[in-house]
């Protein structure tokens, strides 16, 4: 399989911070807002270099979304930043009316998504945000997989005209996406070509999928690993091309299976090309306190879970 050697481990939120630093230096229309989580969002450098383009909102996320929508009237490109829970479920109506329905050029950039937020527990571990955001017309939904891709996605979000929900996280994980790998919103990336099963992974599950790929290869199974960084618009062509080749697939995400990436893929398959699909994701339950690693293991989001799902999908292929 294609190898992705890494020398460094970083959190995806730092990739966002690096992207914002670059945008601060290159795009004078970019402004940033935060609801009392500056340190967590890694935007200190942006603020230091562009104090007049940063608005501290305090603990009032609904207001932050509305102000962001207003800032676009006047040509600004606002990045509204907070934790994923507070940038989605807490403000869904504000996002729906003032951002999505009004089709405003607001970027909702959120950290600490999913179980890997860890010890804070289920109140903060949002696992439903992709479902909410992908249901909104006009909304683009991006869930990058490592530091480099998050930086790329941040810069691409600013260049994209329209509402974006950009989701990243807290844990330190391998930086495995090459800096020069092309990134285009809505365009899936094939990380490994294979013939027996397609594995569509997003966010932190992409690294797990690559580990699964190695395990499967050691057992004589050829897995195609596709990184779906853009949940919406979904790269339907890439999904169909891969499944037509392999005949079955697994979706893997740090999100509820209800309403997540897997359901979007199932929609494609059920309407265009019937094939077995297995789902790796959180199965209709809330999270809990624990280390990120313990939580990913307990809730079935590790490489071995993907391996198991892949074998199940292969076994269900028409004889």
């Amino acid at each position, binding site marked *: 399989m294609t190898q992705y050697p890494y020398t460094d481990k970083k959190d995806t939120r730092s990739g966002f911070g690096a992207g914002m630093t670059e945008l601060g230096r290159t795009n004078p229309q970019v*402004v940033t807002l935060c609801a009392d989580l500056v340190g967590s969002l890694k935007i200190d450098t942006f603020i230091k270099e562009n104090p*007049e*383009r940063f*608005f501290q*909102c*305090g603990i*009032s996320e*609904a*207001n*932050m*979304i*509305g*102000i*962001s*929508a*207003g*800032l*676009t*009237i*006047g*040509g*600004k490109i*606002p990045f509204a930043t907070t934790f994923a829970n507070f940038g989605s479920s807490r403000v869904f*109506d*504000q996002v*729906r*009316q*003032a951002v999505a*329905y*009004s*089709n*405003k050029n607001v970027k909702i950039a959120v950290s600490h998504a999913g179980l890997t937020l860890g010890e804070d527990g289920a109140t903060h571990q949002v696992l439903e945000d992709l479902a909410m955001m992908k249901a909104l017309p006009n909304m683009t939904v991006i869930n990058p997989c490592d530091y480099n891709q998050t930086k790329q996605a941040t810069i691409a979000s600013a260049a994209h005209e329209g509402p974006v929900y950009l989701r990243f996280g807290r844990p330190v994980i391998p930086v495995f996406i090459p800096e020069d790998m092309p990134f285009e919103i809505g365009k899936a990336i094939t990380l490994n070509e294979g013939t027996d099963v397609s594995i569509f992974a997003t966010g932190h599950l992409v690294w797990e999928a690559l580990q699964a790929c190695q395990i499967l290869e050691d057992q004589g199974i050829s897995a195609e690993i596709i990184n779906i960084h853009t949940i919406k618009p979904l790269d339907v062509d890439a999904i169909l091309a891969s499944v037509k080749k392999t005949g079955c697939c697994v979706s893997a995400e740090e999100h509820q299976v209800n309403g997540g990436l897997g359901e979007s893929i199932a929609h494609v398959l059920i309407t265009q090309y019937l094939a077995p699909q297995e789902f790796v994701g959180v199965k209709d339950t809330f999270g809990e306190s624990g280390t990120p690693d313990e939580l990913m293991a307990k809730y079935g989001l590790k490489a071995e879970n993907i391996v198991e799902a892949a074998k199940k999908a292969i076994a269900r292929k028409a004889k």
Partner: protein
Amino acid sequence: MNIQDIASQVRRDIVRMVHGAKSGHPGGSLGCTDLIVSLYFKHMELKTDAAGPVVFDMNGTGEDLFFLSNGHISPVLYSVLARRGYFPVAELATFRKINSRLQGHPATAEHLEGIRIASGSLGQGLSVSIGAALAKKLNGDNHLVYVLMGDGEQQEGQIWEAATFAPHHKVDNLIAFVDFNGQQIDGPTDKVMNNRDLGAKYEAFGWRVLHMDGNDYESLEAVLTAAKALTGQGQPIVIITKTEMGQGVDFMMHTHKWHGVAPNDEQLAKALEQLPETLGDY
């Protein structure tokens, strides 16, 4: 044409639009007519082309902006925008009908000139107007942002998030109005959920608070002029604007019953008798 005559025509438009749609919100629309007519025909600096007519672009740089937070009183805004020249007056006949740009609540999706944000789900307009005011400051644009909210709407929590933000960030190019008509869907505001002293509340949050009779042209003229003079002094401004729901149509006044009800044919005729046609009906 004087402001009062324009307002009379706008009130005719409102009752005819709501009657035509067999739904909509005449009460608050009639109450806020004098304010919104005064803004668009007298107090706001609007972008125009060389020949004089207003021109619309979404960014609104170089002109004053108005946001309607209590979007359900869309009939008054639509009528004023059409009468001011933003879109054809004939389009008022499509209000709330299928394939119309005049949605029940204001929206941008149909690209109606004059509308910059969707509103209807309450409590959001103050935040949006603060954002637009901040953009003006960043752009070095010295024009003002106006926003109208309902008094029932003051029960939404987001209003007070925004009310905290604006003085903290010295958003002093913003003039907010609270349509203080004392009524909401379920009855008098004092009975449904008492807002108590709204002026004192805003003052405690750090706003410059003014009071105005929104149905009295002398009061409107004096207070709007005073408010504009108070901008640029480090504080946002709010004007508690006393209005009468249903103003101009006697049987729609002094009650909350006409918040969201359309008049029938007979009631329409009775209303129109009280409102002289000054600019020609659509």
